[in-house]
């Protein structure tokens, strides 16, 4: 991508191709124009963990879901992932991932962990575990 950019910047007035032209499908198209997750109104934290629900209906059969929804479920199928990792893995903006996850949550395809509430820390035992874990790295 950076190569494309370097190439075109030298030829001012040249046409935009590929990455330079921006995404073929605009973010708002993937979300059907929505900027916030559905009626449940959850705001997914960047480190909220998303896993595939074992008893989930097959998302491939649901015509209301787009390819980006399926891409997210495929990523979760490999391992439980944070919202930030999903966004990086699917190469989608975080805002788009949040809306799509809202859909998947409502359909019961995924489960999402609640982030630690603000101003509250995990107990001492966890912190000790983290310190020991870091030392052992």
């Amino acid at each position, binding site marked *: 991508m950076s190569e494309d950019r370097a190439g075109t910047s030298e030829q001012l007035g040249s046409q935009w191709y590929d990455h330079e032209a921006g995404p073929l499908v605009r973010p708002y198209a993937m979300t059907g124009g929505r900027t916030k997750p559905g009626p449940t109104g959850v705001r997914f934290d960047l480190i909220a963990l998303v896993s595939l629900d074992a008893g989930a209906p097959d998302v491939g059969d649901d015509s209301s879901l787009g390819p980006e929804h399926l891409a997210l479920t495929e990523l979760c199928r490999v391992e439980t992932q944070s919202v*930030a990792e999903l966004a990086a893995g699917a190469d989608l903006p975080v805002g788009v991932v949040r809306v799509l996850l809202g859909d998947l949550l409502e359909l019961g395809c995924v489960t999402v962990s609640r982030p630690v509430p603000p101003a509250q820390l995990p107990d001492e035992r966890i912190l000790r575990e983290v310190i020991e874990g870091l030392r052992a790295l």
Partner: protein
Amino acid sequence: MVSEHSDATNAETAALALKILVAGGFGVGKTTLVGAVSEIRPLRTEELLSEAGQSVDDTDGVDEKVTTTVAMDFGRITIRSGLSLYLFGTPGQDRFWFLWDELSQGALGAVVLADTRRLEDCFPAVDYFEHRRIPFVVAVNCFVGARPYGGDEVSRALDLDRGTPVVLCDARDRDSGKEVLIRLVEYAGRMHTARLLDSVS
């Protein structure tokens, strides 16, 4: 929906993710530090933002909305199955301060990276975390060629609250980065205990 709680889902709900922010001025080594300690290659997430047009792209005084992309680098350290640490490099530019509010929600603490050749670059980050009472350590990234300073000197220059740890580090070095994180988690634990005692008395 009928919810059947199998052992697997119980294990998932018990999964815990902790968040640590890495802040500091532009080019101080935030992404380098994240990369040095992360078990995954630092990933990049993007946030699309709509904001009022800045004066630089002023089109005849029309208040235009433009879309900007902010990138945040992040890494992960798995402590054990079900317990992981996520590190987020905060966006360096001042105009993305509002993103910090989201990032700092529920954060365990923060590392403020400092370069002694331009210490003033980390003032905003120090202010931010002090005001919000988010535990942080100052990690002085010892660049080659920079005059070495002691932790006390840096602490005085930054006018830090008493007890805020200052650690000298090399952001490229994994062990050095680990040490910074350990100091932060220890400090966050102490701050938390102190606050609990405060609230009781």
